[in-house]
């Protein structure tokens, strides 16, 4: 076990905030009633869920009856896309999405395609952004859903959702009534100010464990009036949209985390950005032959995705892990596939750069000392791996 541990993988999951854990433990021990029960124990649980729902709604600028609690982001994305498409199929069977969606969106879209739906996957440009003009160009009268993530999980690029929301409203005003906009905001929630009306979206996904709540809880925002076919059936919970006894401790924790995220949003965002910027400056100073992936401006402030030439991402990841620094990679070996990250490939970079990409994601518990330590370890590991790499020799013309 390394002597020092630095967690720079906050886009994968965040540590549970101690205040959130306290609220959750209280709910586990004291609020054990079934929220569907009529007696006092049940009503106590119902009240706890309602409080949490208000907090999650407040984080998004939504009404509380527009929040559906789920088991996490993946379930919320499934419910949003499949639920809407099943309910709207009589109006059209075309979906627009992007080439860099999270697997929980991309997977549902692929499944719909197998069931006869038409799916248009918009490419991204070299900066990792989708253009709203491209969305407008592929919109058809039979398009019922546009599902494009708000911020990407690997490179952090922030898509022009407001412009897409405006486009959808414009098309509706022009007569295309059955067109809806969904966004996966799992990476953005707690890191960017969110307001569903300003974004103009009809469905929005968030997840608890990306904002310092535990795993196993998430939510889908469903704009009032949007019809969804429930995917979990057999109960009246969540206004018939998600049957099953509510995960009261998880929901309570999520509510507390949402409250803290709203109250501390600016402070956390400034903190994370300062660390990320310091990290990137030091990396550029210390390590040659690096490529920063994704748009430099339109991206989340806590995340840095960097490709290190001549080395493979998982080799670097494990070297960092041996010295206590935790990061993620888009390399093929790491994901258990033969292809490197589709997100990095979608930027148009070559295989070597895609295989050498590493994501560093900062969080509220990281410190400046963490950054110094991580850069030190990183610079040593890159140097060691480059000394091993035949690609370094090729680039220096020493052999072919």
């Amino acid at each position, binding site marked *: 076990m390394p002597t020092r541990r630095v967690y720079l993988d906050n886009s994968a999951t965040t540590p549970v905030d101690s205040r959130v854990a306290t609220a959750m433990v209280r709910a586990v021990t004291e609020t054990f009633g079934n929220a569907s029960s009529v007696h006092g124990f049940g009503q106590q649980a119902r009240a706890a869920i309602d409080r949490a729902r208000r907090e999650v709604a407040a984080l998004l600028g939504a009404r509380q009856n527009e929040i559906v609690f789920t088991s996490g982001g993946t379930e919320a994305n499934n419910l949003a896309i499949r639920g809407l498409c099943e309910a709207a199929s009589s109006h059209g069977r075309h979906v627009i999405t992007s080439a860099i969606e999270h697997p929980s969106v991309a997977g549902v879209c692929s499944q719909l395609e197998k069931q006869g739906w038409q799916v248009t996957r918009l490419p991204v440009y070299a900066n990792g952004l989708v253009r709203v003009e491209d969305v407008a160009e592929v919109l058809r009268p039979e398009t019922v859903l546009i599902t494009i993530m708000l911020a990407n999980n690997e490179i952090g690029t922030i898509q022009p959702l407001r412009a897409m929301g405006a486009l959808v409203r414009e098309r509706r005003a022009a007569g295309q009534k059955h067109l809806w906009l969904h966004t996966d905001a799992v990476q953005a929630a707690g890191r960017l100010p969110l307001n569903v009306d300003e974004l103009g979206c009809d469905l929005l996904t968030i997840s608890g464990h990306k904002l310092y709540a535990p795993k196993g809880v998430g939510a889908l925002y469903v704009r009032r009036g949007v019809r969804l076919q429930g995917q979990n059936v057999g109960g009246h919970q969540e206004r018939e949209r998600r049957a099953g006894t509510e995960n009261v401790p998880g929901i309570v924790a999520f509510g507390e985390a949402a409250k803290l995220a709203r109250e501390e949003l600016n402070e956390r965002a400034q903190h994370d950005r300062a660390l990320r910027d310091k990290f990137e400056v030091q990396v550029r100073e210390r390590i040659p032959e690096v490529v920063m992936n994704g748009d430099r401006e339109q991206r989340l402030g806590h995340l840095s995705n960097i490709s290190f030439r001549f080395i*493979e991402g998982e080799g670097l990841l494990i070297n960092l892990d041996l010295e206590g620094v935790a990061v993620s990679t888009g390399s093929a070996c790491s994901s258990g596939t033969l292809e490197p990250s589709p997100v990095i490939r979608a930027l148009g970079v070559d295989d070597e750069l895609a295989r050498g990409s590493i994501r560093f994601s900062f969080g509220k518990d990281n410190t400046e000392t963490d950054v110094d330590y991580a850069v030190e370890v990183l610079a040593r590991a890159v140097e060691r791996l480059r000394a091993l790499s*035949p690609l370094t020799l090729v680039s220096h013309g020493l052999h072919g």
Partner: protein
Amino acid sequence: MSYSAQFKDHLAHPRNAGELPEANAVADEKNPVCGDRLRLALIVKDDRIETARYLAYGCPPTLVCGSVLTELISGKTTEEARQLTRADLLNAIGGLPSRKHHAAALAIETLNSALAQLS
């Protein structure tokens, strides 16, 4: 993924890494599927491997197999080196999950290519 102590040691402290300009056998093999590369250079005198150096690009098992391979073959006769198998390599690094066995296969393929240049 959980790697053995000997695996981590080779990853953190690669043995016999680098070029070998005076080598009399050099092989450079690539896994066409995943893109991993291994370069092995040998100095063989009187049918015995005096020095072995390697360079590697790829996932950690490929880096480690290169390092372990050079340790296993140093001082061996070419005939003894030809007898080396994937299983020997895997044993020496404390095992690998089956989906990572390609790293040992690449190492043995590179060794055989280098030895073929001597015959």
